[in-house]
């Protein structure tokens, strides 16, 4: 007899009430008495030598406490760490907190001002005089790798930071014997995660205890803690990093270190005052990382009936001026380039290329949307070349259910493990999409509409997503003796994904309480300090399974303790909705608080739970030690989960659109997602992730493009000009769930954080191309699909 599991149900979120009533605590909501404010002097040039920096006027302004350049920041005047080295990354360059001698992109930090408030700090930043000698800017991957291009960094010939080559099977043989080859070049434009809360850092130095506390809107508080401890020469336990409520991340907040993340703590120590840096929106565009720009030249070798026998992809990845995060984005793209298809022979090469632009690190999807766009557009073109239906060509090439696990020997994923898909039913997903969109009925409607001069189109795109990457995460579960609530800690931080609910559901089911009686605390190294970070759709898989393991141990502890208290057999103990009792004797139930109190052989009858608990065993009467050898007090356990391999989610999206042939406005009539992320912990949260991902994908498909001019000026560094979708731009999304349990973790879950975003641009390009087919010259191979680009595509000869 157990209560109904909450796993798999639409439990309302534990975090909502606080956030809905203005009681969220984002970094700038935390009051630090006497806190000073930071503003940065940023480079207005994409490439220039710094001739001189004069801070004297700024320093003289009333209310200014500190104005520093690279000459003043002591041990921090060094290149910041390269997070993920790789043998193919032969010319890594990372940024200094404050530029020394040269600037490499517009927005790079040159000097830091600390003042009474942000108003004064900005006044002072304006008074810092920097003399630059401009150099030729290198903008655009194509220009950067062209012969004769200037080097962004001295000594990096051709601006190539890394050149990677991977092979699976015998691609050359496949192309040599191909009956047909389709070749396309596709381009996915540069974009930004643009979370609603820009980044923020606050720090306080306690000179009595010698402790540094840093509040950082980061996805990786434990990694930041470790890095700061090492940079500042402090023991790790003297540095506490807290990521409180964080207003969206989408990858942009997983990089460490941004200049402010080291300079703000440094200033707090230097001045012995709390210091805050709250990034504004323009700085988020100019100082926080970008993503997405890749140009893929992809070729498919196929038989005449559309069986793809080989794939060759060669792509350029724009990494901006530095490469602090290593090759993750490009490696993920390379690892999933063959998508949902069997394609036994693969060759994938890429170059990561420096340009004088904001550095590039992962943004929701991290290479997957790029790879998906390349393979899915190529499959559409192949279908058209061979006169095969776009659904049918996919069906012919899907990996079959009986073929899992499906390995691509020779291809290495971003976690360093070989690419190996774990399971799913790709054909079933496609059939569900067909049932939802009814292509034959649509074709009739399309034809009728065309006769009236209206252009309707249907498009689709399949995707896979390697999720739940290692190395590990931990879970700590403890029953609190005062409240009886179950506390759960893990090493992640949440930026809106609902961890406080999903993780609560996992622990609640295992322990035997309601999810609302589970308190999830994360993002605080003072609470739990082993772990990695929130990225790569890994939280549910890695932390979720770690929490389950810890909760199972705690359940055993409860049963053991209660069996002693009741002098009953462990198998007769029932835990249900926070009550512990002997089967059939619910009237004599104990609360979890009472059991937790009894598990601590210190007697303190301060509250009701303690008073009732102590009646079972008088403190004075016991045989031997209160704690058996190897036992510990309390109901508490920590365990870890380390996935042996990535688990692969998948799905297919389809869209029906109408395109106005005069204005090229695209109206979305239907948008359908079929997805499989394994067992769902909370379908409501899963749907939120998918739909939110689709909206972000729509941004990339139609609107979002960071527009650099030839001199390296970002021309649209504001939400006025970088067009993120409002509610009026996003359609209602119809979702079908498939649930193939992952065989690679006990919960059977797969990640879903990025899935919604991945195929959206490809699906819309497919649909818009279908709609405009009578007017187009060629295929739509670049996103975003702006009215201007669509107009041009109908005019090109």
């Amino acid at each position, binding site marked *: 007899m157990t209560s109904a599991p909450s796993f798999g149900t639409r439990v309302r979120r534990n975090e*909502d009430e606080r956030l*809905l*009533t*203005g*009681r*969220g605590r984002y970094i700038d909501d935390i009051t630090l008495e006497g806190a000073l404010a930071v503003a940065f002097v940023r480079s207005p040039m994409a490439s220039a030598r710094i001739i001189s920096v004069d801070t004297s006027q700024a320093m003289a302004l009333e209310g200014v406490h500190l104005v520093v350049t690279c000459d003043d920041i002591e041990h921090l005047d060094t290149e910041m760490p390269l997070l993920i080295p790789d043998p193919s990354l032969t010319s890594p360059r990372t940024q200094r907190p404050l530029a020394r001698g040269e600037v490499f992109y517009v927005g790079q930090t040159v000097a830091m001002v600390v003042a009474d408030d942000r*108003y004064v700090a900005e*006044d002072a930043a304006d008074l810092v005089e920097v003399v630059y000698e401009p150099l030729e800017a290198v903008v655009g991957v194509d220009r950067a790798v062209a012969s004769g291009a200037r080097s962004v960094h001295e000594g990096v010939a051709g601006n190539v930071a890394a050149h990677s080559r991977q092979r699976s099977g015998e691609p050359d043989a496949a192309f040599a014997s191909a009956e047909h080859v389709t070749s396309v070049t596709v381009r996915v434009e540069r974009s930004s995660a643009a979370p609603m809360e820009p980044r923020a850092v606050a720090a306080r130095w306690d000179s009595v205890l010698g402790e540094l506390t840093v509040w950082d809107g980061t996805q990786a508080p434990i990694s930041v803690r470790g890095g700061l401890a090492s940079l500042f020469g402090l023991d790790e336990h003297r540095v506490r990093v807290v990521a409180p409520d964080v207003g969206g991340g989408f990858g942009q907040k997983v990089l460490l270190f941004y200049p402010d993340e080291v300079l703000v703590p440094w200033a707090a120590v230097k001045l012995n005052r709390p210091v805050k840096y709250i990034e504004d929106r323009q700085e988020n565009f100019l100082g926080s990382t970008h993503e997405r720009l890749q140009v893929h030249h992809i070729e498919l070798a196929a038989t005449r009936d559309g069986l793809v026998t080989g794939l060759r992809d060669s792509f350029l990845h724009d990494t901006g001026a530095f490469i602090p995060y290593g090759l993750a984005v490009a490696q993920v793209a390379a690892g999933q380039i063959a998508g949902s298809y069997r394609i036994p022979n693969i060759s994938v090469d890429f170059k990561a290329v420096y340009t004088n632009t904001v550095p590039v690190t992962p943004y929701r999807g991290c290479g997957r949307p790029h790879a998906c766009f390349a393979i899915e557009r190529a499959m559409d073109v192949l279908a058209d070349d061979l006169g095969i239906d776009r659904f049918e060509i996919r069906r012919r090439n899907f990996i079959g259910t009986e073929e899992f696990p499906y390995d691509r020997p020779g291809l290495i994923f971003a976690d360093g493990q070989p690419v190996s898909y774990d399971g799913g039913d790709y054909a079933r997903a496609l059939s569900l999409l067909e049932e939802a969109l009814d292509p034959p009925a649509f074709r009739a409607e399309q034809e009728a509409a065309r006769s009236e001069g209206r252009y309707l189109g249907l498009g689709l795109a399949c995707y896979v997503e390697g999720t739940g990457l290692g190395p590990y995460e931990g879970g700590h579960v403890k029953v609190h003796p005062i409240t009886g609530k179950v506390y759960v800690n893990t090493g992640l931080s949440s930026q809106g994904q609902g961890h406080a609910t999903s993780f609560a559901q996992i622990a609640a089911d295992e322990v035997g309480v309601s999810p609302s009686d589970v308190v999830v605390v994360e993002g605080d190294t003072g609470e739990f300090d082993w772990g990695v970070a929130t990225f790569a759709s890994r939280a549910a898989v890695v932390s979720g399974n770690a929490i389950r393991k810890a909760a199972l141990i705690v359940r055993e502890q409860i049963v053991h303790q209660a069996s002693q208290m009741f002098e009953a057999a462990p198998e007769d103990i029932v835990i249900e909705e926070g009550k512990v009792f002997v089967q059939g004797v619910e009237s004599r139930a104990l609360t979890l608080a009472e059991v937790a109190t009894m598990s601590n052989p210190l007697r303190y009858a301060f509250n009701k739970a303690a008073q009732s608990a102590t009646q079972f065993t008088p403190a004075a009467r016991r045989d031997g030690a209160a704690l058996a050898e190897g036992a510990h007090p309390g109901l508490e356990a920590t365990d870890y989960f380390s996935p042996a391999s990535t688990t692969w989610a998948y799905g297919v999206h389809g869209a029906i659109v109408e395109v106005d042939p005069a204005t090229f406005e695209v109206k979305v009539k239907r948008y359908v997602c079929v997805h499989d992320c394994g067992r769902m912990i909370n379908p409501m949260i899963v749907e939120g992730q998918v739909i939110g991902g689709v909206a972000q994908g729509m941004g990339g498909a139609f609107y979002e493009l960071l527009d650099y001019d030839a001199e390296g000026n970002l021309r649209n560094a*504001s939400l006025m000009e970088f067009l993120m979708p*409002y509610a009026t731009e996003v359609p209602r999304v119809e979702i079908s769930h498939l649930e193939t349990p992952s065989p690679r973790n006990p919960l059977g879950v797969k990640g879903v954080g990025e899935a919604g975003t991945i195929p959206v641009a490809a699906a819309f390009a497919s649909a818009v191309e279908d709609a405009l087919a009578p007017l187009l010259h060629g295929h739509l191979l670049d996103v975003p699909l702006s009215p201007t680009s669509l107009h041009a595509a109908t005019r090109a000869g």
Partner: protein
Amino acid sequence: MTGVETSEAVEAEQKTSLRVVVNGTAYERVVPVRRLLSDFLRHDLGLTGTHVGCEHGVCGCCTVLVDGRATRSCLTLACQVDGLSLTTIEGVKSADGGLHPVQQALSDCHGLQCGYCTPGFVISILEVLNSPDELDLSEEGVREMISGNLCRCTGYQGIVDAVRQAAVAMGRDGDAGKGAPA
């Protein structure tokens, strides 16, 4: 970035006194004339539920009610609300002190994720649902209604559903049947 001209640094010293009612409480403060209303609410009054997302009036995170009208507090100087009455997210609640129907609906419909834009949405939706104007609760109508606010997490679907649920709860659902989700 630094948008303030040097000459304005002198004006930074100019201060003015301000009387304002926020969530039913009267405040009197002396503030620099250039202090934004968003900064005044957050830093001077400690009402940090009002968030700042862009500082140029696009995202709507900072929306508050000024005499009942939804207003961008990042585009308003504190001294401009002298003598007026404001409602911020901290003042939004149901008659019994619990969640207001708009807040309840947003939770029920998963209309929030990171929560940063949420106070601005609550305030924007409240203005419309409290107004005497006829409501258009069709899918398109609701999307138009909330199109002054950006959300990067939810894709808006849960917010659209929440507006309809709240309209019903507040007795404003004369048109709610139109275009209801399938």
